[in-house]
Structure formats: structure tokens, C-alpha cells
């Protein structure tokens, strides 16, 4: 087998075209910026029939060139992917190979966009997202990684090799290197091998599973804690608020990395502090849902009691399995009841712990603002309980800023997970998560640049996608 080039034989005529497209685009952009410097932008002309006519002449021409060249670039980039998918392995090189591996992701993305576009008017805020280009790009990138994680983690599709398997002779080999064994199920290491001769592409893809599984879940927990404490702090204010805000500031003032180091130190783990913290932090979803449902249905006990029993029962079981950890201080559940063991409990605890004070502060300030509304006063004057007002009158109306913050916060959590992995905290050193792989690649960075780049690029795109998504949501939620 020959080593793969980046674009394969197809590249020999697509690459020059792409080069020309990019060249024209950049020149036109430079010319346009120079023209803007020289003269003010032409005013938009209003036609008698009420339509708007935009710039003509030279400025209009340049603008048309920019649009056309951008279209060309996009078409060419799509061509790489489409050709890669439909032609046999090797025709479009590494890029084609990767495009082929991601085929299920492409199908899922196209299906999602087509369905959402068709029903966007019925889908509320999510549907409105499809009115904003930025939001759609963000959603596309985020969902790319979500689908990647889904197909890798659940169906074992996308990865080409076992992320932990070492193949002798491929140590630190450049992208596109062929397998020494001709019978291997996949003929190449698409993105090369790392310093332990493992496939970088497969490790990157497997790393997404860890991020996509932990980051949103940890953020949801942080939100539960923040909301359950922030609402009463803002609604009642007074002494309760002073105490809670003080504690939140205390946590925020503590250096995050130091906190992580402390939490994973074996001596500290032995004292049981992380387990107790888990027991404390993870009880908040129970409180949240218990109060939420009770305040809503307490006037109809016949309806409330069964709902509460079912919901709280399921949550309690999950909660106990989660905090129950073999070999730690909390280990009392019989084997058959312990549904799963979370081996990254410490990571989970620390991420929730440092994120919840920020959420707390956001929720608190929103509650402070919303509690002066007349509909809150109306609820008070008909004798509603405080928790009903907080959870059903205030919280739903604070959802806009909270959803935006949720997206941003998943991004922060992703970076935080990367940081944890980079410092080798909490996760095993073999783990394919992006932080750990970047850290390993860093050691030989001066000699071999290719191992840390793919995970770094993956981390960058996911966080960028989340930020764009948050921007799009913010923009669309403000518009009505």
C-alpha cells in the first residue's frame, strides 16, 4: 500500500481551482476595504415602488466578485467531501478518507437540517435559530460532534482503529501512513500515529465521546444547583442572599486548578471529601424536581402523589447509583441496585462545583429583576407559595438568558475538561480525551507537530460552535 496524500489524485485539479478561488476572494476583499477607506459607503437608494436598490458601478461589481468567489470556495470544499464519500478509498486522499468515515454524521446532519427547516415555524426558539446564519453554523458544528460521539460511542462506526491498540512501526508516523500489515481492516492511519503508535484519528473521534457525554451533563447539574439556590436568594434576598452570595464568592475566589489538584490527591480522596461533595451536589436535581412538581400540583393531591412517587423514585435510584462508589466512603448499596459506576466521579464533582456559583449569580440577578413584575404580585395576591412563584412564574421567563448561558457554559466545561486532561487529573493516562492527547503530543512537539493538532482542532471547533450557537440563540431570542 502507498501512503495517502492529503487530497489524492483528485486534488491535482481541484487544488489549483481552490487556490484561484481563495486568491480572487482575498484580492476582492482587500480592494473593497481600500475603497471603504477612500470614500463613504453609497447610500441605499429607495425605488418608487418601495424596494431598495443597493450600490451599482464599481463597488457593486467588487461585491458581486466577493460573493461569487466565496460560492466557488464553498462548492469546492463540498466537492472534496462528496467525492471522498462516493469514490473508492484513496482517490481523494486523507480528506476523502475522513469524509467517508464521517458518512453517518453527514446523513444525520442533512436529515436534521431538512426536517428542522421544514417545521421551523412550529419549533419555537429552536426553529427561530434557523433564521440566523451564525446560529445555523454553530448548531451545525455542535451537532457534528454530537453525532460523531453518538455513532462512535453507541454504534462503534466512525473510528478506523482501536484507540488504544498500538501497531509497531507506526510510532510518530505522518498522516496517511499505510499499515504494515496488508490484511488490516483499514489500510491507513488517516492522521498518522502518536508516540505510542496509536491511530490519532480514532483517538480524536473517541475523545469526542468523553466530552459530549460529560460536558452537558455536568453543566445540567451545575444549573440545577445554581437555580435551586439562586432563585430563593434573588426572590427573598435579605440575609439568605447575603450568606449564599458570600459562599459563592468564596468558591469563585479559590484557584480552580489548585482545587482540582486537591480533589484528586489520593489522601483527600481517602478522607471521602469528593464523595461527600458528590452526595451534596447531586441531591439538588431531586430537590428541584420534587419542589417543582409539588408546588404545581399540591392543590390536587390525587394527581400529585403518583407523579411525585414515580419521578422521585427514579431520580433517587439514579442518585444513589451515582454517589455509591466501590472502595470509597459511600459504599452501602447492594451490588444489584448499583446501576453503574462512574469512574470519573471526581472530574464530574469538580466541574459541577466550580460552575454552579456562576450559574447561581446569574439566576439570582434574573430573579431579583423578575420578582418586581405584576404577574408575580398577582400570584402573591392569590396566595401562591414562594416556590411556585419562583419555579413557575419567574424561572420560565428567565429562560432566554439561561439557555444562552447554558450553551456558553458547555463550552467552558469542554475547555475545563481539556485542562483537566492536560494536567492528567482524574482521567486515566491512556484515555483518548482531547486534553490528555494534546498533553502527550506536546512532549515531542518540536520534532513531530502532527499528533496534538487534531485534538486541539477538535476542541477549538466544538467550543467555537457552542459560542456561535449561543450568539445565534441570543440574537433570535431578543427578536420577536
Amino acid at each position, binding site marked *: 500500500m502507498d501512503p495517502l496524500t492529503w487530497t489524492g489524485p483528485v486534488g491535482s485539479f481541484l487544488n489549483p481551482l481552490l487556490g484561484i478561488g481563495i486568491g480572487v476572494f482575498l484580492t476582492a476583499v482587500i480592494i473593497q476595504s481600500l475603497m471603504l477607506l477612500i470614500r463613504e459607503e453609497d447610500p441605499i437608494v429607495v425605488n418608487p415602488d*418601495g424596494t431598495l436598490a443597493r450600490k451599482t458601478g464599481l463597488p457593486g461589481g467588487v461585491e458581486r466578485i466577493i460573493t461569487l468567489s466565496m460560492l466557488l470556495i464553498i462548492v469546492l470544499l463540498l466537492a472534496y467531501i462528496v467525492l471522498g464519500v462516493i469514490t473508492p478509498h484513496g482517490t481523494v486522499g486523507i480528506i476523502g478518507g475522513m469524509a467517508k468515515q464521517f458518512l453517518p454524521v453527514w446523513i444525520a446532519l442533512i436529515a436534521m437540517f431538512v426536517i428542522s427547516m421544514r417545521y421551523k415555524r412550529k419549533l419555537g426558539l429552536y426553529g427561530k435559530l434557523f433564521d440566523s446564519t451564525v446560529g445555523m453554523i454553530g448548531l451545525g458544528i455542535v451537532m457534528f460532534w454530537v453525532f460523531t460521539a453518538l455513532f462512535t460511542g453507541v454504534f462503534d462506526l466512525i473510528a478506523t482503529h482501536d484507540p488504544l491498540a498500538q501497531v509497531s512501526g507506526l510510532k510518530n508516523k505522518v498522516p496517511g501512513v499505510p499499515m504494515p500489515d496488508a490484511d488490516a481492516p483499514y489500510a491507513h492511519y488517516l492522521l498518522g500515529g502518536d508516540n505510542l503508535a496509536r491511530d490519532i484519528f480514532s483517538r480524536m473521534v473517541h475523545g469526542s465521546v468523553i466530552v459530549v457525554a460529560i460536558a452537558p451533563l455536568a453543566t445540567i447539574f451545575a444549573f440545577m444547583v445554581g437555580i435551586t439556590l439562586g432563585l430563593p436568594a434573588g426572590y427573598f434576598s435579605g440575609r439568605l442572599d447575603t450568606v449564599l452570595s458570600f459562599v459563592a464568592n468564596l468558591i469563585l475566589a479559590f484557584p480552580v486548578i489548585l482545587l482540582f489538584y486537591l480533589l484528586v490527591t489520593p489522601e483527600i480522596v481517602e478522607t471521602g471529601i469528593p464523595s461527600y461533595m458528590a452526595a451534596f451536589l447531586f441531591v439538588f436535581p431531586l430537590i428541584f424536581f420534587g419542589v417543582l412538581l409539588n408546588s404545581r400540583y399540591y392543590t390536587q393531591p390525587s394527581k400529585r402523589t403518583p407523579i411525585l412517587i414515580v419521578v422521585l423514585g427514579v431520580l433517587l435510584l439514579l442518585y444513589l447509583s451515582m454517589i455509591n462508589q466501590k472502595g470509597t466512603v459511600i459504599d452501602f448499596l447492594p451490588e444489584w441496585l448499583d446501576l453503574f459506576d462512574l469512574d470519573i466521579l471526581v472530574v464530574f464533582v469538580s466541574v459541577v462545583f466550580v460552575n454552579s456559583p456562576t450559574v447561581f449569580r446569574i439566576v439570582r440577578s434574573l430573579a431579583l429583576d423578575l420578582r418586581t413584575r405584576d404577574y408575580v*404580585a398577582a400570584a*402573591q*395576591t392569590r396566595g401562591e407559595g414562594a416556590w411556585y412563584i419562583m419555579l*413557575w412564574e419567574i424561572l420560565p421567563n428567565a429562560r432566554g438568558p439561561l439557555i444562552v448561558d447554558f450553551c456558553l457554559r458547555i463550552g467552558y466545561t469542554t475547555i475545563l475538561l481539556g485542562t483537566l486532561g492536560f494536567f492528567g487529573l482524574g482521567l486515566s493516562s491512556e484515555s483518548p480525551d482531547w486534553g490528555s492527547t494534546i498533553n502527550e503530543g506536546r512532549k515531542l512537539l518540536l520534532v513531530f507537530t502532527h499528533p496534538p493538532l487534531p485534538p486541539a482542532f477538535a476542541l477549538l471547533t466544538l467550543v467555537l460552535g457552542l459560542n456561535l450557537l449561543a450568539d445565534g440563540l441570543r440574537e433570535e431570542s431578543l427578536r420577536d
Partner: protein
Amino acid sequence: MADRDYTGPILEIDKLSISFFTRLREIPAVMDFSATIQPGEALGLVGESGCGKSTVALGVMQDLGVNGRIVGGSIKFKGRELNTMSAEELRDIRGSEIAMIYQEPMASLNPAMKIGRQLAEVPMIHEGVSEEEALARALEVVTDVKLPDPERILKSYPHQLSGGQQQRIVIAMALMSKPSLLILDEPTTALDVTVEAAVVELVKDLGKKYGTSMLFISHNLGLVLETCDRICVMYSGEAVERGSIEEVFDDMQHPYTQALFRSIPLPGADKNARPLIAIPGNFPLPHERPDGCNFGPRCNYFEERRCNAQAIPMTQVHGNDRHQTRCLRHEEIDWTAPPEVAEKKEKGAIGPVVLKMDNLKKYYDVAANALFGGGQKKVVKANETLSFEAHESETLAIVGESGCGKSTFAKVLMGLETATDGEILLDNKSIGNIAIEDRTTKNVADIQMVFQNPFDTLNPSMSVGRQIMRALEIFKVGNNDAERHQRMLELLDLVKLPRAFAERMPRQLSGGQKQRVGIARAFAGDARIVVADEPVSALDVSVQAAVTDLLMEIQREQKTTLLFISHDLSIVRYLSDRVMVMYLGHVVELGTTDQVFAPPYHPYTEALLSAVPIADTSVTKEHIVLEGDIPSAMNPPSGCPFQTRCRWKANVPGGLCEKEVPPVRHLAEGHQVKCHLPDEDLQKMQPVIKIAAE
């Protein structure tokens, strides 16, 4: 400047059209609008919210934002076309020759800059004068707007001044460069009535003194009557009638103007002979305007295939070259015909006492140093010895300006706060010291409230039906969801909303419809006492009448006791049986409507009556302008709370007003005032509002 000698009209707007462009469509905000302002003349621009009156003002300032564009017509200022001016020329004119005063004074002042510097900036930028000279001129203008202690004012920051003072500063800033045209966009809407009266008085005086032309934008016909020479009524983006104040008020030639006048209560008229008539239907959205006449679908004189055939031009009213109307039928309609009065409904007889307040007091402790809880404690006396009775199916109006303690009173009554002293008796059972969570469901359901702001009264993320259902659940009405659903639909019928509205979200409803849902929610538990906190003041004039009528109709059917909190004395006179006037926590006057609205008055009532703008040219008012602002409840004056602003104070011997709180005096059966004035002075008082004999 050369054009100081210009003698033609100051502002000529000719066939102006302004549109806003959104992603979906072009939205025409103003169409075919013409107006002329002569030097020294004040033009009033009247219309409901969304009719485009502010857009005209912004068009004159050429400040329409990114989406707005002038799509036709011309705006000439002193003969120069504003539409084609460059940005620099416009900068020169704005602020120096055309000045604008906005609705919210706090938002138009820079909170980080001292007043003096902000004022001095104007001549320093436009005329390049030195800072000392500019500050000297600032001092002069601040004195002109009648602010006390101008030197101290110049050194203070905006947040240190009251709302009325801030608006005076904004006016002063507009006058700094002696503009030829002053645009006032609802300049007094955010202020209290007595303060509003003083500001309006000031604007009128200054207009005369400086010879400034004014474009006065307001939704209040009474205010326009008091300030302007000419008036232009706008409806849905078009001017529908234009003329001098007398012509338009007494000889209206457009059905919308007529409907507008018929929907506001006038103190000169009797409520039985001249009931309020609401304008049917809703204001059309800009992209849903009908063909032909925009007012057609709501008009009584509508004629099919004539009024909706083509666009209707502005035409001269016969025999008057400065009075125009946009109505095809204005010559056929008999404008003097009295309105068709719907069948007169008898008011329910007033029943036994339901609610009794006895010496109710509510004090708040305010710690001087909030952080450490130390320092001296201050007591704010929000309500002071409040005593009154309210009967079944009676409307008791509570009148007063902000800070008079009416909201605190409502809170204590509802049980959100407990009384410091005294008692509230509901059916002879004391509830004054029982917080709402300890009250029985029956008690809570009995006393309900209708709120002021329609955009805030409904939870935006819950459907209308769900919100009413929740109230029913809480009040334990109905045994299951099906029964409650049925009851909810009946409540929607009660407030005359279609049943389909149950599924709607609040943002899909107009202001008046939201207020109706608020009323339905209040009556969910068959409330017997309803506190209506300015229920119509945030609504447009044309829907105010409909909501008011609805409240009174429900009252007739349910025998509800209505506690109507308001500062609008016209509407109070129209619907209430008894009136209670409050000032700084004290009840200064209490009596039947006729007693309170006729002399002898309490001096504060007298001033309030005089401050209300009345849209009726046959009414003459005595002008009583109160000096200064309402004192802070944190630091009330000694003795009588009103003594700092009272014009009768000199008639009381021995400075008694400053020493003692006046006792409650009974002047007649059920009429009480809190005043030191001797009887002969009270008897000497003249009626404030006089209706010219016809």
C-alpha cells in the same frame, strides 16, 4: 447666522412618507403627512400609540435608525430641505436650532456627568464659547426653568434630582442654544399630575418668552388644548384632521376625532347624559391596514364601496383654508347629532358595609446603614391613621400621586404586608394582621387585584387559559380539570373575550385584551372586593372606555366593591360613588363624588382638580400651580403634610400648619377633610372647574 432673519414658516412638512424595512416587508409608519408651523406657533400632534406621531418627530430630526427611511415628501426647516442635508449640516442644526425633549428624563441625561457640564456642552459645541460663559448661561437658563437653588443644581448629578426637576433640566438643555423649533415627545407622561401641570405651565411661558415654535406630541387631548395653537390628529400613520384648537375641538370634521372625544370622560358632562362610548374594534397593525380609509372598519359612518374604494386625500373643510380633514363624507355627516346612547343600565343599589378600615397604620423601619445594620433607624410612615368603610357594589376611588401611600395600603389589604397598628375588618372579622399565607382561601379569593401595566400583568410564558385555570385551582373552584376548564371559558365570556383566546399566549393579545384577562383572573374566585390599581391608565384612549365599562358592568352583576386607585380625576368622577384623596400617607379628604368635586375643598384636592388637563374648550379652570415636588416619605414635613406646598397656609393663624397635624373635620354628612383652615375660608372657596354657560 444669515437665516435668523428668515420670516417664512419655521417647519414645512409636505407629503412626508416614512417606512421601516424589516426582513419580511416594508412597514409604512407615516403616509402622506403634511404640516406647517409658523414662527412662535405650537402644533399639537395627537394620536394613540403606534399611530406614527413619534416617527414624524424623528423624521424631522433625521434620526430614524438603520431600518427607517424617508421614502417620499419633503421636510423644510426655515426653507432649507432637511432630507438632502449632509451629516455635518444636520449636526449643526440638531441641538442648536431644533431641540428635542423626550419622554423619559432620566434616560436623556448622562448619569455620569454633572448637570452644569452637560448644559454647558451645548453652547460650547455649537457656538464655541468659553466654558465660563457657557456655565454662566447655564445658570441663567436653570433660573429660567424655575428650579430652586440653581447653583447647587448645576453641581449635582442627575440621580440627585426628582423626576420633575430632571425634566426641567432637559427643557433647560433644549433651550440653551435658543432653538427656533422645540420638539416635545410626550414630555410629561412620566410625571405626576401636579408636577405635569407645573412643567406644562413652564413650557408655555418659555415658548412665549423665547418665541420658540413647538411641535408637541401627546396622546392627551387636554394637554394639547392647554399648550397648543393648532392641532393635528393622527390615526394609523395618517393625519386625519388638522386645524386650530377651537375648530377641531368644537367643530370636528372627522369621525375618528369625534369618537376620540366621545371615549374620554369630561368633567363638564354628566355621566348619565353623556356616557363613554368606546371605539369598537382594534387599531390596525401597519401591514394589515384596510383599503381606503384606515378608520373605515371602526367607523359609524362607513359606506361600503365608497370609503374603501381608493386612498382618501386630505380635503379642505368648506369655508376654512386652514382646517382639513381626511373624510369623504364630512359634508354629509350631521356633526351635532347626539351620540346614540345604548340602553341605560341601572346602577346596583349600594349594600351593607363589607370592608372597614379602622385607624390603619403602616410604618416601615429603614436602617440608615444597611450593610451592618447599625446606625439610626428611620421610620417611614407609609399609611397614617386610615379609616373608612366600603359598601357592597360601591366604587370607592382612591386618588393621589406617587408616594401617597396607596400602593402600601393595597399591599396591607391584600395581606402581602401586615398592618403596624389598627384593623381591617372584612365582614366584621379582623384580617389586618393576618399575612396572606395564613388567610383562608375564601378570604384570599374575596379580595383580588387588577394591575396597572397590561404588559406585565400576565405571565408571558403561560397560556391565557392556563393562568385562569391556575387561579381556579388555588381558589379550590371545581372538582376536576374539566369543571375548571368550563368555568374558565365562562370567565372569558364574562370579560367578553372569544373562548379561543384560552389557547393564546399573552404576547398575541393587545393591551386591552390582556387587561380583560387580568380582570377575569381577579374574578376567578368570585371576588367581592377588587382593588383596581390604575387599570386603564396604560391603555390607549379608545380602549380605556371599553375596559372601564366592563369593570362597571361586572360590578353591577356581581355586586362587587371596587376600590379604584387612580390619579385621573376625570375618570374617577365618571365612575366612582365616593372619593378618598390621599397625600403622603394621610387621607386629606373623603366624601361622595359630588362633595369632593365641589367646594369646599381641601387645598390639595383643589390643586389636583386644577392640574387635570381637560379636553373641553367650554371649561375654564382656575390655574393653581403647586410649587416644588412631593416631599419624601422618609422625611415628611412637620405638622400638616401638605403645608410646604399649600397656598392657603397664610390664612391659618399662629403657624398652626407647621406645628400640628390637622384633625379630621366633618363638614357634612360623610364628608371629611384634614385641614386647619377656618370655616369661613373653606366657605369662600370657588369651584375650580367652571363650565361656560351655553
